[in-house]
């Protein structure tokens, strides 16, 4: 099964739509609830990252018999120091974003903690690509 969704930067009220849709699909497929919970946390955080930091992005999900593969590709500022961005507590989020309760520097660490495989590539001034895999 394939699912794609365009994500627009700054549109916080849409964050969570892709993760909710995928949650429904995984439930229908009878995937283990612990795997579902981990997967939707990762997708939600990835959605929020695009909304909070990029101009726009595309989220693609591929569900196979034994795994779910998620690719989030955005056009935006990119990440200057990926190692630092992966540290809990480090954030470059704006004041407005922080007031909403985002920007705690926990998004990428949450994604890593809730996925079996995570790769992240970023070009400053162009954008970021994150690939995630969870096995069922």
């Amino acid at each position, binding site marked *: 099964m394939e699912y794609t969704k365009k994500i627009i930067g700054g549109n916080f*009220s849409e*964050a969570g739509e892709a993760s909710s849709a995928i*949650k429904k699909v995984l439930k229908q497929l009878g995937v283990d609830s612990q795997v579902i919970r981990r997967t939707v*946390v990762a997708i*939600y*955080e990835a959605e929020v990252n695009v909304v909070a930091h990029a101009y726009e992005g595309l989220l693609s999900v591929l569900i196979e018999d034994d795994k779910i593969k998620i690719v989030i590709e955005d056009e935006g500022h990119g990440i200057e120091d990926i190692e630092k961005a992966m540290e809990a507590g480090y954030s470059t989020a704006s004041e407005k974003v922080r007031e909403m309760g985002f920007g705690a520097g926990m*998004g990428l660490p949450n994604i890593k903690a809730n996925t079996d495989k995570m790769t992240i590539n970023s070009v400053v001034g162009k954008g970021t690509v994150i690939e995630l895999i969870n096995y069922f």
Partner: protein
Amino acid sequence: MMKISELLSKIDLNLENKSADIEHIINGVYASDLLSDVMGFAKHGELWVTLQTHKNVAAIAGLKDLSGVIIVGNNKPDKEMLEKCTEDGIPVFTTNLSTYQVCGELYVILNQ
């Protein structure tokens, strides 16, 4: 194990969406205003105590299978948040109590 409905007579909470499911079992309480903190560390079935009132609260409560949301300090959920929670059957409570007061009372009630 206590249901949400049993809480209502024990603590001063206003249920904002009457059609929500208040027969959920409360598995505990998580208090935080940082959304990624809740995303990372709250457990399913927990009641979430927060002062955040926007739609992403609803998204997180739904994705994490939380049993309900308590909005403290006399804040009100915005329209989008309340609609989404109602759609997902998640009870939303408001109270004029502070986070400290709500958590203190819940701690006593749930550990009796």
